[in-house]
């Protein structure tokens, strides 16, 4: 059997690693934009090959898979899906595990995801509003902040995935800081408008959502369109630096286990989260008429208004969350892929270890994420025997293997170290002990987050989960879960969700 993977990050290295452990003994081929040293080695050891090429170009991918005569293609990152790689492959009769272009809208367009939730009245929603331009956003907020207080504390996002544009979380609770917070919001609207101007295919460019607080976690799932199978919860850490400070990154490390839910998330919350993801898969299939076969994930948060809530959706596995999940997976990964392709996931027994907690820590070169150019091109030295001796695993990320056999940094997250133990803190300590095994030979610095998986950070997560839980359970008991009521002097009681639904229906009726 021949399998081809697409993508060159740590997530894809972990996928390749898991494939190499399969009883099917597949020959492993790969296409990535960078020569990932880990994937390169696995391909070579398994009668395959890693080739570099544009992973978003359907022609490149189809040509290679035909040339290699592969049986299954597995797509790792989101961009190939956005660009219709699975569609192109299936048109050619090549089996592909990965969300097709239309289905991947749940990740590509944050605004469409919210509309889907509200149109279908699915649980786990947040209030939102989209705007055509910065002016419209600023005017709307200024005009309505008095009668719709949720507009004070907001998350600003590009309405669709847009090169490098991040998310801004703005809490505007303190009257004395209101002016500066308002100015910051409006300046970011301007900046989003400028960067989104290039996309003429969509009308709405700016997305504003109600800001929620609480512990975040990812629920990654396999689906064949009929069945959605959940995997253990994983918590990623998005801030660059210790104790959740500093700029937003792709993810600096993640924790999972030893059970299906995380130590601070209940089994009931897990079940509810899975229902929410199932609901999204069902709704997007209904809307597009396409069948979803591949990976899907909810980036969730426990919130005071809704309990488990979707922050964003993945149309793929998370990076680094995939590493945790794959480390816990006991079922043969190739069996999983075959069951997805043959639409018989309901018959598959998906098994995970319940003995090991998994910690993953990402190592990034100084300069990431704000000055990637500076972070690029530094030669890497890795002491593999040390890593193995300490019982850790290394997954290469944004690194490029040169012809001389040396790996250099690509400017983004370089690699991830993973360790397992019965609980999280000792696994975290094991990685800390191993960190000195990774160096840049030109003296440029590397950093990682030592706090991930530590007692201290876990206690903080636990505490925040308990606080939110008390609030949403209160709402559950009082029948107000998911409702947002405001009482405004001289106006009376208003329900911003009703306003939102009315606004969503408005243009449709007119049209």
């Amino acid at each position, binding site marked *: 059997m021949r399998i081809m993977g697409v993508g060159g990050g740590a997530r894809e290295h972990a996928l390749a690693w898991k494939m190499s452990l399969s009883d099917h003994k597949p020959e492993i081929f790969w296409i990535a934009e960078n020569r990932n040293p880990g994937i390169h080695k696995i391909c070579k050891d398994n009668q395959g090959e890693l080739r570099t090429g544009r992973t978003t170009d359907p022609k490149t991918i189809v040509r290679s898979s035909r040339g290699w005569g592969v049986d299954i293609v597995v797509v790792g990152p989101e961009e190939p899906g956005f660009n219709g790689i699975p569609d192109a492959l299936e048109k050619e009769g090549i089996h592909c595990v990965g969300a097709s272009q239309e289905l991947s809208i749940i990740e590509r367009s944050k605004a469409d995801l919210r509309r889907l939730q509200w149109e279908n009245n699915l649980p786990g929603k947040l209030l939102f509003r989209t705007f055509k331009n910065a002016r419209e956003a600023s005017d709307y907020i200024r005009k309505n902040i008095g009668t719709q207080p949720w507009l004070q504390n907001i998350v600003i996002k590009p309405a669709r995935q847009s090169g490098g544009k991040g998310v801004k979380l703005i809490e505007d609770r303190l009257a004395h800081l209101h002016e500066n917070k308002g100015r910051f919001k409006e300046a970011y609207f301007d900046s989003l408008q400028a960067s989104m101007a290039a996309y003429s295919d969509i009308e709405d460019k700016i997305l504003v959502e109600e800001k929620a607080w609480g512990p975040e976690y990812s629920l990654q799932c396999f689906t064949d369109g009929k069945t959605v199978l959940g995997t253990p919860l994983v918590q990623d850490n998005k801030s660059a*630096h210790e104790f959740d400070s500093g700029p937003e990154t792709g993810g600096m490390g993640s924790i999972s286990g030893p059970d299906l839910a995380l130590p601070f998330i209940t089994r009931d919350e897990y079940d509810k989260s899975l229902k929410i993801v199932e609901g999204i898969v069902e709704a997007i299939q209904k809307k597009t008429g396409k069948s979803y076969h591949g990976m899907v994930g909810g980036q969730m948060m426990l919130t005071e208004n809704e309990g488990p809530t979707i922050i964003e959706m993945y149309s793929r596995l998370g990076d680094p969350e995939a590493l945790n999940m794959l480390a816990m997976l006991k079922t043969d990964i190739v069996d999983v892929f075959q069951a997805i392709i043959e639409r018989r996931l309901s018959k598959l027994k998906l098994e995970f270890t319940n003995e090991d907690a998994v910690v993953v820590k990402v190592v990034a070169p100084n300069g990431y994420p*704000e000055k990637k150019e500076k972070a690029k091109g530094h030669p890497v030295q890795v002491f593999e025997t040390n890593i193995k001796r300490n019982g850790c695993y290394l997954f290469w990320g944004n690194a490029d293997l040169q012809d001389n056999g040396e790996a250099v940094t690509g400017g983004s997250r370089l690699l991830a170290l993973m360790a397992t133990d019965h609980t999280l803190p000792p696994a975290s300590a094991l990685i800390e002990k191993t960190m000195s095994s990774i160096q840049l030979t030109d003296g440029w610095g590397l950093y990682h987050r030592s706090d991930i998986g530590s007692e201290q950070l876990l206690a903080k997560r636990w505490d925040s989960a308990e606080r939110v839980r008390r609030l949403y359970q209160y709402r559950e008991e009082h029948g107000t879960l998911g409702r947002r009521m405001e009482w405004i002097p001289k106006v009376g009681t208003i329900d911003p969700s009703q306003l939102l639904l009315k606004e969503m229906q408005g243009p449709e009726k007119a049209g």
Partner: protein
Amino acid sequence: MPGLVGFYTFGEGRENWDASHFIRYGLGALQGRGQESISLATVGPGNTLHTLAGKGGVEDFFEKNKTSIPKGFIGIGQTSSYIDDYLVHVKTPYELVLALDGKTDLHENRREASKLFARQLSQLLHSENEPLKATSMLVNKIGGGYSFVALTHKRALISGRNPLGVKPLETGSVGFDIAAVASETCALDVMGIDHTGPVETGEVIMFTPEDIRGNAPAADAGNFCSYEYVYLARLDSTVNTLPVAKARNSIGRELAKAHPAKANVVIGVPETALPIANGYSQESGLPQEPGFVRTGENIRAALEPTQKERLVGVQLKLNPIKSAIENKDVVLVDDSVVRGNTLRNTVLNLKRNGAHQVHVRIGSPALVSPCPYGVEIPDADELISSSLDEKELANHVAADSVSFMTVEELQRAIGLPRQNLCMRCFENGGAKR
């Protein structure tokens, strides 16, 4: 004693943050540490340090200088109880401004000692290519007891506590955009920033456009100032992970256990001693009543510059509520006694207004030595407890009894190990017993 604030921003759009605005409110929350002299510095897109300094208080300073407040998206600020105590600005070889709470041992004079520290830091940043390591070595080398925040023209913010850790410093962050340090957590709260934990003893944390990085903290837990818990820190702050309100309540309870009094009512001297009186009341079962209403600003009597102002301050501050004390025996709870003026005025005031017996209970041991790390505790010859014992002091202030806590009682109440608490002001030389 200064209060420090450092404000740092990341990411796209950072130029839209107005650091001075956050610093203003952060310093406002720290005014209890002093408000004689205010100064701040910011740096923006141009990599130029802008500074401003002047007389306090914080609100007056910012209102008066509305048009000249330095603009920038990164900044530091200091509010100090000392006259003309401003940020130290070093221009060469490496330009930086420094705010420092406490005292380094580089010079007898606190101000000179801070200047020398700033110069050494500037020299190191200029000559060393690993600034974090260099600063960490400096902090381990230079003794004294201090916390500091420095800002460089290259937009690096460097904060740290020396291994003794006698002076507090706390960190916080919010969203992906803002990180901060401040002497007390109340300043972070007011700036809308979530507290993430203390800067550890011997730890240096450096914020640069690329990074936030810390060195390994000292192995020793440090020697925290116990007077922070008694009097200095604001009630809504957490100092070294211990909530101040909790510490003050337990000081009151310990005081009631060790120094009971026969009385009808417990009255606390506003503001600091109120939660101590509350703890005393809870433990003793005696009711606590509000005893005074303050007129005018919350002036910390012991920190006032001249004797005259101090007397006026006291009278304005404490107008007794007569019905609460008339014909009653009163336990009067205060946090500490410096020169005894406040206490004398207060006791006399109570008796003139109808209180029968007044038993004074102090929520700390007698102050007998000045603070080597810059807290304004006067020299020993100005401290009444270095010459009068409890009985003599009672006679002096016209109280029916006066009791201080012992060092052991205070340590037990705070709940930290003895070796981790600095109690030099209660010990060296010793109280007259």
